[in-house]
């Protein structure tokens, strides 16, 4: 009986111990939080305004849990405005220090969620092992380039050496032959080839005609390219990659060139448009940076710094200093004054894709003029392009009558008067 009792007590104690251990471990777990879950929560809720190591719209959040006590953080994250209104000194101080930007309230986050987020922000900054192989790659890549050059140089040197040796060998052989008394047969002097050619009148005439025709052909080609800037790709003050923006990130052309929709000029975006995104994107991701350095020889981060400098953006305070510098972009597409061109007419009315004239801009690392922009080029397109009349009441009557006149279903721009001189020259 006693024995049984004792056994019972023992098992009870062990059970108690287990419970205690479990509760203890779970309490530790709750306080510590799960950093992996925190990262997901952080990226979906906080990352719009907060970065871990850099000030963004809100302050940098690494080790924020050490700066404030946890209960204060709970109430701040759930409703910061209520905390400020309650007159909490710390809350007002934070609010004032961040340009009075109102932090979105997150009443849906539980204390456990916030613990997870704080666990993530309390993680030590990972030591950057990634950049080291990155730069290593760069060095090795450029190293292979150098070694290629070295190999080529060595080859050239070997060939030169061979030529010199051949000369030396022939000269010594000749010397030996002379020494041994070998005599060479003296060649008879023949009529030189050019003399025979000059004496043949027919051949002379034919070659003269051929020469003149080729000269005319090249002269024509030479004159026709005067004033045509196809392929012109100047160096811009800030290296802007259309490939990254319009290609990889699929930003619409009209996003930056917003006046192309409604103005004659397509518009070079003012820097505030750049800053709409680059306020947040201060540096490019590592793979993009490595790609820029390796393939294009450009440090994209430095180019973003040039933008900040021109826009007067202070990265440390995340605010404008007011000291701006104009960016002197180099104009690429330029029609002569005697030809009128209107972007909105082509973009909005005709619905022509930008790429039709500007080419695959979304693949261009350095912007260049794709089309010749000559009159013949304009007219070719006007002859081929059907006017988009659907849903445009303006065209209804004119389209009806003109299609009757020309006997066609769909009118081209040329048939609508797109070839008349006065349309573009006045």
């Amino acid at each position, binding site marked *: 009986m006693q024995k049984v009792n004792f056994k019972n007590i023992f098992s009870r104690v062990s059970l108690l111990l287990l419970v205690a251990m479990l509760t203890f471990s779970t309490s530790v777990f709750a306080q510590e939080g799960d950093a992996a879950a925190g990262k997901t929560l952080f990226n979906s809720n906080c990352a719009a305004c907060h970065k871990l190591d850099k000030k963004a719209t*809100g302050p940098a959040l690494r080790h924020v849990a050490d700066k404030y006590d946890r209960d204060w953080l709970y109430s701040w994250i759930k409703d910061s405005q209520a905390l400020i209104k309650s007159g909490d000194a710390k809350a007002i101080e934070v609010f004032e220090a961040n340009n009075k930007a109102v932090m979105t309230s997150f009443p849906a986050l539980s204390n456990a969620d916030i613990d997870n987020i704080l666990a993530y922000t309390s993680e030590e900054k990972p030591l950057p092992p990634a950049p080291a192989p990155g730069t290593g790659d760069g060095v090795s890549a450029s190293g292979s380039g150098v070694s290629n050059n070295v190999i080529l140089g060595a080859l050239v040197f070997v060939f030169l050496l061979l030529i010199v040796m051949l000369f030396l060998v022939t000269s010594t052989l000749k010397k030996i032959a002379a020494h041994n008394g070998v005599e060479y047969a003296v060649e008879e002097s023949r009529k030189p080839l050019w003399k025979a050619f000059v004496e043949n009148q027919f051949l002379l005439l034919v070659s003269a005609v051929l020469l003149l025709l080729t000269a005319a052909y090249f002269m024509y080609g030479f004159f026709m390219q005067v*004033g045509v*800037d196809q392929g012109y790709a100047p160096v811009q003050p800030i290296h802007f990659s259309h490939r990254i923006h319009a290609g990889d990130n699929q*930003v619409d052309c009209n996003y930056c060139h917003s006046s192309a929709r409604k103005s004659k000029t397509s518009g070079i975006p003012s820097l505030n448009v750049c800053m709409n995104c680059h*306020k947040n994107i201060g540096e490019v991701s590592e793979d993009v940076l490595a790609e820029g350095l390796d393939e294009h020889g450009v440090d994209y981060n430095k180019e973003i710094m040039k933008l900040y400098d021109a826009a007067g953006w202070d990265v440390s305070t995340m605010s404008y200093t007011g000291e701006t510098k104009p960016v002197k972009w180099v104009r690429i597409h330029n029609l002569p004054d005697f030809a009128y061109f209107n972007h909105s007419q082509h973009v909005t009315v005709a619905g022509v894709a930008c790429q039709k004239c500007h080419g695959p801009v979304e693949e261009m690392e350095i912007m260049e003029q794709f089309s010749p922009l000559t009159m013949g080029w304009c007219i070719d397109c006007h002859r*081929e392009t059907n006017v988009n009349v659907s849903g445009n009441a303006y065209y209804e009557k004119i389209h009806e009558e003109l299609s009757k006149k020309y006997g066609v279903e769909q009118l081209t721009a040329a048939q609508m008067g797109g070839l008349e001189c006065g349309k573009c020259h006045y």
Partner: protein
Amino acid sequence: MRKIGNIFIVFLALIALASCQNDLEPNYQFMPNMYAPVGYETYGEYDVEGFEGGQEAKLPVEGTVPRGFQPFDYTNSPEDIARAKSDLKNPLEYTEDNLAAGAQLYNIYCAVCHGDKGDGLGILAKREKFLGIPSYAAAGREITEGGVYHVQMYGLNTMGSYASQTNEKERWQITQHVMNLKAALEGKPLMLPKKIIDNQTPQLPVGGDATATPTELEQDNIDSH
């Protein structure tokens, strides 16, 4: 030996000719005075007094208003955001044209981050260039017409202002589309023009239409060849 010398000279001349091809400099022009405009051209550079740094592009004189300008009676302060959310109302009627224009503009300016559907999953979010873009239907987000318009005017937190790229009408058109996207995400009835409601075909205008037109045009061109 003389022959080799001649070949060398021809070779040099060819190199000299080829080096004239330089993509970094514009080509020379025939009679450039017919190319250069008499008036001041957009983005031109002129040595004129009053053109700071020779720059034709200048800010309008302070106090200048564009044609059709309506003063916007809200500043960029927390109080005015709250006021805009409750008081500011959409003056535009819901018409097919407005909704289509709104969808097209939304796809140009907003969809890169906010996503075609307004779920916060635009291409920049998917590529992790921007993080934490909320869905319009996210719980606890109080999105009203006035608030949407105010955000486009002044931006909010990480989002910048779109006042320089759009005009008042366009911002309201975008607002209509945003409200419809929100309603669609939440499964609520859409705001639609009267005509469509009568026809019982409640469908969101797809902004892709506008971008699809040029390719259709090009298709026609190819056919006509």
